[in-house]
């Protein structure tokens, strides 16, 4: 396996230009998401989905400014963040896929083989980030491939390539983690205490994300789960409980027949 590649998305320099979102659609020839004015700041596409593999979130944080207080120059923030599949170390989608359509590539990324996916939709419910989605018209599940095709051709993913401010950085995951640590320290030194990394720790619930983020607020503010856990972590326990229930079924039926034999005789 080649080096594990990943994304470090530094939202502190994201300008919300959506070039990543458009570049992704262009490269992957994705359908549009419909034309609906959502009135949620500048976000009219809402979330990641079958047809949107990069999604830029816009969060306006402004407190009402008393107009009379002329000395107040306002503390407003407009957070922007480009979300993407996390390419989890322990990827629930991949774990639960019953067909092997989802696989781990030589770059350590998680990719769906569209010709094998049978659209069972299991991955959709398994993903703790709500990334993957089934496209209704073709019945298959879709998500970011971290531009597997481009990577194989020695190119960086389209979204990272298009990002003007290097908010999306692509590279070997180890390097990115180092860079991210430095960046957070720098921001902390500059007084941005709220800067934090999300998904970079190999100790987290998904064993570390292959696409991790620098956020300026709590993850849920960006629509991200605060403490996602790969669902298969509890799988052994689940089987144990199910096994116990199975035994109970057998037992219950046995008891029923045993008891009703008496009844039958009566």
């Amino acid at each position: 396996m080649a080096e594990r590649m990943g994304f470090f998305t530094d939202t502190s320099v994201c300008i919300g230009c959506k070039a990543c979102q458009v570049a992704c659609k262009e490269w992957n020839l994705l359908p549009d998401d419909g034309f609906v004015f959502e009135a949620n700041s500048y976000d009219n596409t809402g979330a990641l989905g079958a047809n949107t593999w990069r999604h830029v979130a816009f969060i306006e944080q402004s407190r009402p400014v008393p107009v009379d207080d002329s000395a107040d120059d306002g503390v407003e923030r407009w957070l922007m963040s480009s979300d993407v599949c996390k390419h989890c170390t322990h990827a629930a989608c991949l774990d639960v896929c019953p067909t092997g359509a989802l696989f781990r590539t030589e770059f350590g990324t998680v990719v769906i083989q569209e010709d094998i996916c049978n659209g069972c939709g299991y991955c959709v419910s398994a993903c703790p980030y709500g990334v993957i989605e089934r496209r209704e018209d073709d019945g298959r599940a879709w998500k970011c491939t971290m531009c597997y095709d481009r990577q194989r051709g020695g190119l960086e993913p389209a979204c990272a390539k298009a990002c003007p401010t290097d908010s999306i950085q692509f590279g070997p995951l180890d390097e990115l983690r180092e860079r991210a640590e430095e960046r957070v320290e720098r921001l902390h030194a500059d007084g941005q205490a709220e800067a934090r990394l999300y998904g970079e720790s190999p100790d987290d619930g998904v064993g570390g994300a292959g696409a991790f983020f620098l956020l300026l607020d709590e993850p849920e503010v960006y629509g991200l789960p605060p403490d996602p856990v790969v669902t298969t972590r509890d799988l052994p326990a689940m089987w144990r409980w199910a096994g116990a229930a199975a035994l109970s079924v057998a037992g219950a039926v046995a008891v029923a027949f045993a008891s009703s034999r008496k009844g039958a005789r009566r």
Partner: protein
Amino acid sequence: MVPEAEFQSYYGRPVLKPPVWKEPYGPAYLYLGGLSGVSSVMAVMAEFTGHDRLARTARVAAAIGAAAGAGLLVAELGRPARFLNMLRVFKPTSPMSMGSWILAAQGALSGVAASTELTGILPAVGDAAVLATGLTGPLTATYTAVLLADTAVPAWHEAYRELPFLFAGSALASAGAVGMLATPRAQAGPARVVAVMGAVVESVAGVVMERRLGLVGEPYRLGKAGGRMRAARVLTAGGGLLASIAGRSRTLTALSGLALTAGALCTRFGVLEAGRTSTADPKYTIVPQRQRQAV
């Protein structure tokens, strides 16, 4: 009531995607799996205990349940033509993969068992098959709980302890009900007991689950899912009660069997809906995770 949780979200949008499994396919499949699985066990026991009529009913119910369930499963796929891709791999981390194998085995075995029973050809093979379904049956009835629990859907995942019992109970009740309904009343005694036990297990598991889940249990109580779960509880309890007193009364048996079947279906529809609800509101994703982090 759980007090209104304070939490932040992105325009109140869900964090998770809703389950794709559609009504009625998904819940009906869960019901049929349970019916088939427990029916198989009943067939085995009936065989041993000489309840011939009941054995026959159970064999047929198991086969129909499995076949129809598989049909629904295929229909549920985004690309049904690719159903066989399920059997390309054997993947222990995927309950659906395991389930496919279980269902395949259950379907094949119960199919053989039922057809030998009905045609009278190769009865020994049929008996062997029935014996084997004594193994696949209980799994067919309960693996579906793992299938649902092994997702990020809060109301399912967090319920992984009780769901198997809920489904087991519900399956017992379903199979018991069919056994009661489709067997001459004289031979249906064990089926009635199975039904009563199922009703008890289902009811207890349901209550325990909702209690333990706290906030994440809320979807089982509120809205559409709540209605279904309540209906399920009434139907199941009522059906169970009726079954226990039905004796040889035709009317009471019929009422009981229908109530239990309806109850089992309501449970499955309720569970599916609760899962959907728990993904639709980011609260159920964010608050428990926050609380988990806080400890």
